[in-house]
Structure formats: C-alpha cells, structure tokens
C-alpha cells in the first residue's frame, strides 16, 4: 500500500507532528482542520493584523508554539491541507466533510484522529447565566482576540488551566476577582511523588500560583461552588461558594470562567466503531488504543488529547508515535530507537497525568449534591430534578435512555458540556458507579450543519 490515502483530522500539536513524520517518510497526508489556522486550541494563532509577539501570547510555551507553527509552515505546501473544514460523519473508508457551505467526501485507507479536547464542566446553580464561560473559552478570548470575558472575572473549577488562565489574565491587565479551586491543598501534597515525574512543569505551576499571590488575587482552595449569582436580563453578578473552612462567601463579578480540566472529542472514533475504555483516574470514557495510538478498528488511529488527556507536550510525542505506528502497519521501516524514545517520554507524562488527576480530581460529589432546580443541560434548560425523575420514575438508569426521556445531551452542544455531569447525576440517583450507566453515543452530524449546503465532487 505505497499509495495509501492517509487522512489526519486536526491540526493541533498531535496532527502537525503526525503530518510532519509521515511526510518525512514519503507519505503525503490530507490534513483536515476545523479551524482556519493551524495550532489547535493550545497554540492557536491570532488573526492577521494582530501584533503581539510569541512571548506575550504563549508565555513559557512560546518556543514550543513557534516551533510547531514553523514546522507547519514548512510542510503546508507539501501536504494536502484543508482548513475551515468540519468532518461531520464517517463511514468505513470515507469521511463526510463540509467547508464554507460545500459538502464533499474524502476517501481514506488510514485515518488518524487528532481531534483534541474541550473543557470538562460540572454544572452549578446559575451557570446558564450570560457571562459564564468555559475556562478554555476565557483563554481563547484573551489569546485570540486580546479581550477579557468581563470587567471582573472569577476563575472557578480545578486543574492546572485554572491557574494558567487566571495568571494570563492578570498579566494582560484584566481584573481577576478570585481563583476558586475545588481541590484542597492536601491532595496536591499527596500527588507530589507522581507530579515530580515532570519537575519543570511542576515548578512552572508553583510559579503561576506565586504570581497570583503576588498580584494579591484571592485564591481559595478546597471550595464548594454554590451558585452563580445574577438574573436573566443582566447575566452574571457574582459567585457564592463555601470556603475550605466551611464559611459561605460571595464574590462580586460580571464573568465566571468555569472548568475542570478537559474531555476528549471522541465522536468520530465512536462513529467509526472504535472501542472505548473507562479511565478510572479521571473518571471518564475515552478511545481504547494501544501504546502507539492504534484503536480497535483496523486503519483508525488516534493521538493527542482527543485520545488521552495528557497535554500538548505529550500530544507532540503521540502525534509522531502514531505516525510511526502507521508506517509500521504499512510495512515501512521504522527506527525502533525513535519509537522507544517517544514511548518513554509518554510514560513519564502518563505518570504526571495521574498526579494531576489525583491533585485536581473531577468533583463527582458535586453532581450528587446539585439541587433539583440547578440546570444540567444549559442548551435546553433541563434541570437536575427533571433528569433525576427520568431515573426515579421512568427507570432510565442508562445515559442514552435517560437522554431520550429528558433530552439532556440532545441540545446544541450535543452533550459536550452536560453528558459527564449528567452521567454522575444518573449514577447517583440510581445508586451505582458512574461507569455502570454507560456513555452517550456519538451521533452524526457531530456538529450542527446548515440546511444550505451544496454537494460538490470529491
């Protein structure tokens, strides 16, 4: 199969490194990306006409961002790059793509999914109010558009991104009202042995925290979120929470950035029939792959955060490694030293990932404690009480059945921001472990399509 048609979906760190490695081996891949420019979310490029330099935009990651962009610029003309293109469905050997109102199919022999991740959300009473944004969204506002999501912003949730984005906001001159982390300090200390797998990254994290304290930003650990305050016309007006010592406190703000680490975009792998696995450490489903990124379906591969949430550095290794796996499967010679090097680097990053999961755990207990009146599905305003009734009164203890009854997961976001919390609510109501209630199946189209689409020849 010297002329294998190889398609990579996603031009972030994993997709670009994968394309680069394949090109070096003489394979010219098609690289499809939904964004207009390469870099993914983490190394997203600012629009033409913006003038901030790499250090301002990417901070300590500036050199990595620049290196990835330069690598892409070198290979752009040599590969078949298709930006601004959504893969909305697939069948064996064929992708359905839409770009600027035109639909075309793309045939493949091998498919490498580098589809990335989105924020992982846990609802809170009032999170549907205008002015609540995902944490990653708050970062994109700053990085891509040089704006703050509000005049006074609260950062709430858990995970390293919380501190990174809050400190980026401080540095850019935005007013940060508070950083509210649900994880207590004690878990961070317990996770230290694992976090020391990457001492440099750990040190960077400590420096971010120090920057926030130096800027006199109120940082609270071990909090319990209670409510985003505000009303339907004005939107967000503040946040109410319980402090680590059990006191109820309120912070005034007109914007909230909310997030609990990331969840992988697995819809295309799911539609391809790839097996999924439940990750105990982060308490979520993702694509089951071998160490190199082969899924359970022959010819379908996955790398980066879309396969396993390990961050951008791991995504670069995983992108190169998955390319080597494909080359091996195509009977091409592969340097075993190169392959082993990436695998060893990823093993270290895996250890660090487990440390992060321990230090900043997914707050499943919040779903159990969510008041009946709180909205779970912010697309269609469906409350925790309505979802619990589908379990208690209709016996829907499996998420897809509960979705059919309640519509939680059927709205605009197609479950991206409610499915994880919804599963926790269902599991708690049914009195079972969350992995026993299943996971929402991927559905085509994986994102909404316009009715005005013209079909064109492949």
């Amino acid at each position, binding site marked *: 199969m010297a002329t294998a048609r190889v398609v990579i979906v996603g031009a972030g760190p994993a997709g670009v490194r994968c394309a680069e490695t394949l090109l070096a081996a003489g394979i010219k891949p098609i690289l499809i990306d*939904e964004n*207009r420019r390469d870099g993914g*979310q983490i190394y997203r490029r*600012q*629009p*033409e*006409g*913006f*003038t*901030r330099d790499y250090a301002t935009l990417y901070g300590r990651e500036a050199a990595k961002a620049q290196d990835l962009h330069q690598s892409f610029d070198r290979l752009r003309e040599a590969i078949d790059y298709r930006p601004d293109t959504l893969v909305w469905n697939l069948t064996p050997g064929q992708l359905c793509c839409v770009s600027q109102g035109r639909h075309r199919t793309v045939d493949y022999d091998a498919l490498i999914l580098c589809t990335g991740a*989105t*924020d992982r959300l846990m609802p809170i009473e009032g999170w*549907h*109010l*205008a*002015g*609540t*944004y*995902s944490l*990653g*969204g*708050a970062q*994109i*506002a*700053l990085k*891509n*558009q*040089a*704006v*703050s*999501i*509000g*005049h006074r912003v609260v950062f709430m949730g858990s995970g390293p991104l919380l501190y990174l984005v809050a400190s980026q906001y401080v540095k*850019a*001159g*935005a007013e940060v009202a508070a950083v509210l982390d649900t994880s207590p300090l004690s878990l961070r200390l317990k996770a230290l042995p694992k976090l020391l797998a990457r001492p440099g990254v750990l040190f960077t994290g400590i420096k971010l925290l120090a920057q926030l304290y130096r800027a006199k930003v109120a940082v609270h650990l071990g909090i319990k979120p209670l409510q985003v305050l505000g009303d*339907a*016309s*004005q*939107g967000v007006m503040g946040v109410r929470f319980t402090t680590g010592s059990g006191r109820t406190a309120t912070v005034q703000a*007109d*914007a909230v950035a909310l997030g609990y680490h990331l969840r992988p*975009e697995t819809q295309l792998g799911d539609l391809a029939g790839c097996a999924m696995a439940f990750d105990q450490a982060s308490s979520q489903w993702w694509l089951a792959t071998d160490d190199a990124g082969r899924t359970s379906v022959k010819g379908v591969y996955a790398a980066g955060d879309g396969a396993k949430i390990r961050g951008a550095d791991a995504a670069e290794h995983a992108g190169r490694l998955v390319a080597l796996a494909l080359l091996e499967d195509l009977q091409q010679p592969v340097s075993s030293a190169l392959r082993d090097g990436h695998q060893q680097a990823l093993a270290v990053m895996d250890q660090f990932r487990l440390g992060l999961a321990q230090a900043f755990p997914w707050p499943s207990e919040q779903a159990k404690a969510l008041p009946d009146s709180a909205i779970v599905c*912010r*697309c*269609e*305003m469906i409350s925790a009480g309505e979802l619990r009734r589908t379990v208690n009164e209709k016996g829907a203890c499996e998420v897809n059945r509960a979705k059919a009854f309640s519509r939680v997961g059927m709205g*605009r*976001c197609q479950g*991206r*921001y409610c499915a994880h919390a919804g599963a926790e609510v269902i599991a708690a109501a049914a009195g079972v472990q969350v992995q026993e209630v299943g996971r929402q199946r991927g559905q085509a189209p994986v*994102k*909404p399509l*316009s009715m*005005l689409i013209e079909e064109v020849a492949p």
Partner: protein
Amino acid sequence: MNGRFVRLAEQGRPAVSLTVDGAPIQALQGDTLMVALLTHGTALRQSEFDSGRRAGFCLMGACQDCWVWTRAGERLRACSNEVRDGLDIVTTQPEATWPLHG
C-alpha cells in the same frame, strides 16, 4: 457598563462598520462577531428555552451557544466568524419560536 467583553490590547487595527439589530456599530478588523457584539452589549441572543439572554460559552465552536443571524436569515456562529464591513446582524431567531420553559 455597556459591553461585556473588555479590550486589553491590539486596539490599533482598522475599524469595520456593521449593523446589529438595525443600529450601526464599529468593530476592529480581525474581531470575531462575538467580540464585536459583546464589546458593545451584554448578550448575543435570546435563549429559545427560557427568558435568559445568552452570550456564548466555549469560544471554540463546540457549544453552539453564540448563534446570531444575518438579515437574510443565514445563521452564523459568532465565535468563529470574523466581522466584515456592511454585515447586517440580527440577534433574534428568525425561525418559529416555541413557548418557554416554566
């Protein structure tokens, strides 16, 4: 306070003129529609399920919370479409609407 988003840098770009719900506004070249609208107002659209206003959520094309419409009825995702001179945007859904929750 008349806007939700606050510009922190990159304000030397050329101006772009567009219309939002019949009123002229000025934005900057390279702005997403979301930034153009939310530096002037506090919301992008009316929720079709409750009385609340919506102002987007994810900014990465995943949540679909930031839809607005052109006068001609074309739907645009405000976080991933850039402003253009002469755009005529409406923030109310042109299709049929249903009774609200509760």
